[in-house]
């Protein structure tokens, strides 16, 4: 358990002149469930997008399972990663998007079997078995042959979770998975994520505004502000006894209604 599952080493990310991440050091242990909270624009989604290789980095290094993500070794030197290296590294990660991003022209079942068949080379029957297992897990067995637009937002997001799980990732990234949902549909999605959080091997990294949920399932909560981790600790420490003034202000603002 020495090497962390995810490690950010002095990572910089800028869009033009805007620095989203500044000199970020950040670690997630194997099997750890970490929640990132913070104001919008603090760079929390960028952390997930860098891990999913949807955004590159402008400085520093990211390691997944001990191997550099955005670099690879060539002749004893670290060079920027090739597409082949990224593809290989990506298989360890799965992502759930805020806007689901299901393939609208495919049935639920096809959404779940497409990548396992094409990328992992599973047979049609194997992929179908795996998909049906996952649909049972997320409680959508009877919706296998529907199209995404025939489902509610909560159901679509549960398909999104199942689709990511179908690739058997070691790390699941959740990018505000309930932010696009009507309030009454949030619970069913959180229940599925809660179920996953009980799996010891699965590393989970989640960006969310559901504070109560973060408190409940997280091993550790990180408060991001201005492209840096402002404060990090157990849910009890962060929610019960925050040390930083910025953390207190943020929690005060978001928990006002609770």
């Amino acid at each position, binding site marked *: 358990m020495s090497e962390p599952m995810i490690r950010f080493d002095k990572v910089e990310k800028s869009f033009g002149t805007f620095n989203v991440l500044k000199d970020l050091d950040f670690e997630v242990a194997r099997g750890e469930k970490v929640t990132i909270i913070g104001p919008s624009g603090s760079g929390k989604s960028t952390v997930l997008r860098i891990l*999913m*290789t*949807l955004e590159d980095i402008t400085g520093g290094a990211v390691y997944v399972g001990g191997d550099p993500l955005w670099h690879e070794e060539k002749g004893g030197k670290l060079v920027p990663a090739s597409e082949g290296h990224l*593809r290989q590294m*990506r*298989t360890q*990660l*799965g*992502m759930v*998007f805020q*806007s689901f*991003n*299901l*393939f*609208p*022209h*495919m049935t639920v079942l096809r959404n779940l079997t*497409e*990548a396992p068949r*094409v*990328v992992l080379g599973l047979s049609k029957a194997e992929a179908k078995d795996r998909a049906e297992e996952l649909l049972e897990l997320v409680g959508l067995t009877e919706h296998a042959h529907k*199209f*995404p*637009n*025939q489902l509610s937002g909560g159901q679509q997001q549960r398909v999104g979770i199942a*689709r*990511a799980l179908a*690739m058997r990732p070691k790390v699941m990234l959740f990018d505000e998975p309930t932010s696009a949902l009507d309030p009454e549909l949030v619970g069913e999605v959180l229940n599925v994520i809660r179920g996953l959080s009980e799996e010891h091997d699965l590393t989970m990294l989640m960006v969310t505004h559901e504070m109560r949920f973060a408190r409940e399932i997280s091993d550790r909560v990180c408060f991001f502000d201005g492209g840096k981790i402002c404060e990090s600790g157990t849910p009890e420490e962060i929610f019960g006894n925050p040390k930083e003034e910025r953390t207190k202000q943020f929690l005060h603002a978001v928990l006002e209604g609770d």
Partner: protein
Amino acid sequence: MLFGLHWDTAHGDLAFAASILPMLLIGMWVTIEASILGFFVALIIGLILSVLKAAPSRLIRWPALAVAEFIRDTPLLVQLFFLYYVLPDYGIVLPAFLTGALALGIQYSAYTAEVYRAGLEAVPHGQHEAARALDLPARRTFTHVVLPQAVPRVVPAMGNYLVSIMKDVPVLSVVTVLEMLNVAKIIGDQTFNYMIPLTMVGGLYMILTIFASALVRFADRKLPKRGIALR
């Protein structure tokens, strides 16, 4: 006499019309062939143009943009003359029909390229991200994620261009292609009766374009587009 057929000028207008109908139908068949061939050329060159115009490298993108702009800003007739009279100087001799269909296809490729671009851009960025997160190869993403969502969006616009191409086919008469209008003109020249053949061309054209539009609508209805949000 035309195509080995004779016209009847001795028994009144109806008999004359009936006697030239087979000739006009032969011309109409040429019109249909030129439209379809031109349309396919436009579909293929347009797709290539749209991909090149979106290329990351300026060395590819800029020439493609210049070519598309040039095609769009010059008349079909000029392009047709160029292909028909200039290419033979460089050893490329094509039959008039092929030259004509090629000119039509090239002219319209500038427009179909724009339709492709709009169709591809209408596929949300999140679809590309989801495909990448699932590690789908780029080619698979294009053929199985992007295209199936783009094609239903472009079919109606492409269909309109098919009808437009059809109506531009008479331009090919200037390079001796015996399409419908040219046939009518020859009949007129020989019989001094332009009124009847030209009126018939108009009527036949209407039937042709109405039929083509119906075909496009039919294709649009039959396309698999379940689940895809079309505006």
